[in-house]
């Protein structure tokens, strides 16, 4: 399982966000370059359609692959009330043949994206990952060298934390609490429930940039 919130931020404020995150997390950022290939089962395969994501980390000298299955969100009155999405998620590292294997099994390319940016991995009540990236589409099949932003000038911010059915309440609280620190720059919410950019972003960013993050927001 994982807990997830997302938000968007204008590219011009990403540097300020990075300064804020650096101060909050106490760790250095890591570069992110992930080619995300989303596959869907062909028309006859499975009694219900299925989707699987193959993530290729192209930042490594030797690209590494991860298979990711994102399942349904937690449902019910309790789930409606919390501001963080809790959903099933299973990942597995895989060797480089993974795309060939899924094609041979009858999966087809649904869409592919290139995410470029940075991540922070740290612990604050739970192991949390903040990813700030531009989402790019490829003009030709698998051509990561020729990718263009899906939303120029806007980047996606995602905060995720692994969870189990026993501890998800604590993880939700940790993620929610962390997100409050980012509120002056961006609003984070459940994926699919975006509220757009925040009006305080410009002022908050200016403040962060002027004294390198010394200001308490």
């Amino acid at each position: 399982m994982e807990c997830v919130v997302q938000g968007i931020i204008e590219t011009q404020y990403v540097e300020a966000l990075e300064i804020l995150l650096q101060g909050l997390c106490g760790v250095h950022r890591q570069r992110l370059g992930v080619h995300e290939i989303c596959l869907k089962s062909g028309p006859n395969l499975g009694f219900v359609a299925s989707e699987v994501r193959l993530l290729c980390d192209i930042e490594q000298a030797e690209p590494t692959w991860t298979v990711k299955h994102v399942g349904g969100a937690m449902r019910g009155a309790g789930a409606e009330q919390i501001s963080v999405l809790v959903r099933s998620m299973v990942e597995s590292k895989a060797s480089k043949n993974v795309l060939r294997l899924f094609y041979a099994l009858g999966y087809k390319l649904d869409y592919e994206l290139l995410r470029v940016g940075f991540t922070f991995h740290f612990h604050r009540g739970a192991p949390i990952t903040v990813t700030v990236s531009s989402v790019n589409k490829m003009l030709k099949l698998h051509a990561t060298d020729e990718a263009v932003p899906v939303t120029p000038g806007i980047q996606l911010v995602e905060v995720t934390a692994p969870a189990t059915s026993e501890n998800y309440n604590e993880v939700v609280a940790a993620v929610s609490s962390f997100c409050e620190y980012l509120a002056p720059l961006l609003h984070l919410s459940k994926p699919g429930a975006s509220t757009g950019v925040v009006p305080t972003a410009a002022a908050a960013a200016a403040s962060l940039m002027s004294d390198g993050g010394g200001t308490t927001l």
Partner: protein
Amino acid sequence: MPLKWVLNWQPNAGSTVNSQILNEVSQCVESINGVKEGRWKATLTFYKPMLRDQALAADFPRDFLGISLPEQPNKYYFILRGHKIVLEADSSIQLIMEKLQSYKSRVALNFEGFQYQLGDFQLRVGKVVPTHSENLRGIVMEVEYLPISSLEKSRQIMDEFVDIWQDTVSKRSLPGHFLHIEPNFSDYGLADHYTSQHTAVQYAHVMAQLIASVQAGQAARN
């Protein structure tokens, strides 16, 4: 990692495998001073596609196998023999396949038995049985040479050892012999340096031989 050859018991025409043969083979290992060390088990699963229209079954692979190996407890291996694809993944890939529900387990077999130390060699003798059954379907043997990881550099010593082994077994006049047919690893994109992916490919090929000999036995009886 050290390389190994996986050998498959090939019954003579008209005969089948039985536990007496398995006992005799184990005694052979001990007769050449193999020291029994402990148990081992590998599990092989046949997957079948879940199709809304069975008439289109030919469009999907029928040889999709998954294997777990005792020397890699956190890994799982997929093989598509017809496509010459082998994949190494974390064990969690099995959970992903369950969630996808596009392929399900059709039958699972255990390869299990004892392992023996014999100088620089580690030998494993194993029965092939369906999970939750004691119905013996075959016998396999692993011959691992610990000092070397290169398939080519080890070829001569492995040939010599297997010759000695075949000779020892033949003295017991059993109705069959061990067979080693090395798959073309380069077809699978595998190099000379031995890995668990090579082992997974060998087991997939041994499985094909087992199925062929069972089918040949059935044909002979009909």
